[in-house]
């Protein structure tokens, strides 16, 4: 793992909204790394800050404190013009709701090429049309669709347009913010397959933000669990699911319904009680319990968690 190239590094990220009395700290001291070619999952309930992290990387939300590095170079704060242009292209985003994220008054052709136009990333009009055509083909749509409006498409097709819009910029890193939550069950599998196909084909790295753990387990390589703006556990996905350590992760995993009536009806759900931690006297830090498996814990808990991970409960 250690010799892999780090594509994105987030170091001690803090995001605060509001001022003075209305101050709200949405992200508290979050650090993680994303390696090239992997799919990194970010899970948590609504309001936990997972989207804020995604938006901070996209530079939509301002970073209050901390650093975000892309290929080892800083992307937050003041950056040079050339570097700004490059990261605008290299980091793209896919949004949650394909019904709301496409301009209803623009044709697909314009929607897909808007990024190209803004960055003047084409030689002539023919080149631009060619790029749009290729992007459409890549996501499994027909090139003729370029002259249509978004309302003429189904939800799954719209999400494909959203993906094509990201692809046309030839990105290296894509932030997918709940890309399939708004889709119907039968279409989810199609879009998931498309995302994995594109990853292999174009050598992409994903940050996959979701609250549906069954999908996260299927698609991600490593996963971070976030609770109220703090990452409480981070590990390889399989390890996280088979051997969750932090009580919040355990509660979250136990709450995921399984498609097995026998297991499901016999299951007891663990409930997370944040008051179980004694963090006032003994503040926690983010420690590596075993290789590649990080948990937020204080000294007292570390001992307990270590023994848990060695027995494998």
């Amino acid at each position, binding site marked *: 793992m250690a010799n892999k190239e780090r594509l994105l590094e987030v170091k001690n990220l803090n995001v605060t909204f509001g001022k003075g009395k209305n101050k709200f700290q949405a992200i508290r001291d979050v650090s993680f790394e994303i390696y090239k070619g992997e799919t990194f999952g970010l899970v948590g*309930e*609504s309001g936990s800050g997972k989207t804020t992290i995604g938006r901070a990387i996209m530079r939509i939300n301002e970073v209050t404190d901390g650093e975000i590095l892309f290929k080892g170079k800083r992307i937050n704060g003041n950056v040079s013009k050339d570097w700004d242009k490059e990261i605008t292209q290299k980091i793209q985003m896919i949004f949650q709701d394909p019904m709301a994220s496409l301009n209803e008054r623009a044709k697909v052709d314009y929607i897909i090429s808007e990024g190209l136009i803004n960055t003047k990333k084409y030689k002539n009009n023919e080149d631009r049309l060619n790029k749009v055509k290729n992007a459409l083909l890549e996501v499994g749509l027909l090139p003729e669709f370029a002259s249509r409006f978004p309302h003429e498409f*189904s939800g799954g097709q719209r999400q494909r347009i959203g993906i094509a819009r990201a692809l046309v910029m030839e990105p290296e890193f894509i932030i997918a913010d709940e890309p399939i939550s708004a889709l*119907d*069950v*039968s*279409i*989810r*599998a*199609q879009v*998931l*397959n498309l995302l*994995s196909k594109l990853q292999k084909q174009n050598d992409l790295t994903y940050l996959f933000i979701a*609250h*549906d*753990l*069954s*999908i996260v*387990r*299927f*698609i991600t390589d490593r996963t971070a669990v976030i609770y109220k703006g703090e990452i409480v556990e981070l590990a390889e996905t*399989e390890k996280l699911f088979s051997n969750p350590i932090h009580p919040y992760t355990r*509660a*979250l995993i*136990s*709450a*995921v*319904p*399984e*498609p*097995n*009536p*026998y*297991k*499901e*009806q016999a299951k007891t*759900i663990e409930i*997370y009680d944040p008051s179980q931690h004694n963090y006032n006297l003994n503040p926690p830090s983010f420690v590596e319990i075993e290789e590649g498996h990080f948990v937020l814990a204080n000294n007292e808990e570390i001992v307990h968690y270590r023994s848990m991970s060695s027995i494998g409960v």
Partner: protein
Amino acid sequence: MEGNNTNSRILSIQNLIIKFRLRGQVLTAIRDISLDLYKGESLAIVGESGSGKSVLVKSIMGLLDKNGYINQGNILYKEYNLAKFKSEKDWLKIRGREIAMVTQDPMTSLNPLKTVGKQIEECVVLHQGLKGKKAYEQTLKLLTDVGIHNVEKRYKQYPHEFSGGMRQRIVIAIAVACNPKILICDEPTTALDVTIQAQILQLLKNLQEKYGLTTIYITHDLGVVAKVADRVAVMYAGDIIEVGKTHEIFFNGKHPYTWALLSSLPQLGAKGEELDSIKGTPPNLFNEIKGDAFAPRNPYALNVDFVERPPFFQVSETHFAKTWLLHSDAPKVEPPQALQSFFEEGRRYAYGK
């Protein structure tokens, strides 16, 4: 328990056809459905969007849109035939009092200008005939029942002061306040987080026991189905294509559409491999559908599937499926690879019990 169930039918839908007039055309949303609901059970209706699951339950509540009408069939409840109801006055005897509904989005189903206490009390006064202090006390009891603490303070608060999960609890309290016999839950947890979802489902289960409710769940989440349902009806293009006990559908499903739904679950997929997905799109309900509606998307389709609509074939006493694959002349077809081990695991559970 099973013996009891079969005896006491509480609601019976017979040969129901529902059509909608739309821009001069006629759309058939429900295509000849028959379904029985037994007292005390919880039935889940699953299917993709546009399959007609919401239309079906709306017709039971008399809440069809203005351009929709029942073309044929009966909905029998007690001494009434709901399919023949014409006026709102007729429906007021049923709606809320006998059959109540919990809707999908708790953000939009509450009145933002009234305190939640008043909204619940409204139902208590109207349907239970209580007044004044008694109604107030009953409201507090309902609030406690749905797991809300500090009820006297909460009574005076407005919906915006509650979180999503808490609001859904209020919606449930309103539904239960009417003392219904049947509770319809239309995607009750789709708008909620997983941890909250688990709590709400548990609450609904507890209330079902406590009040002796019969429940209908509409959902597309098979995990939710596994948690709450005794029986499952799978809908596709306005038709029920398979119905049976939950374990029969999950581990002995017979219709290729049921297979497709199950095998597209990410839980069954192997990492790094393609997930099974359903190709194509559902049929256009403006057109007349010939044969099995799923046939054009069905890799297992037989020639007869394109010509004649399959009837229900009986699999067990409680399990029926509409697919020609069950006909005695049909070739033997194995479910997709991904499903076979899932079926096997399920059967181990079934026999282990």
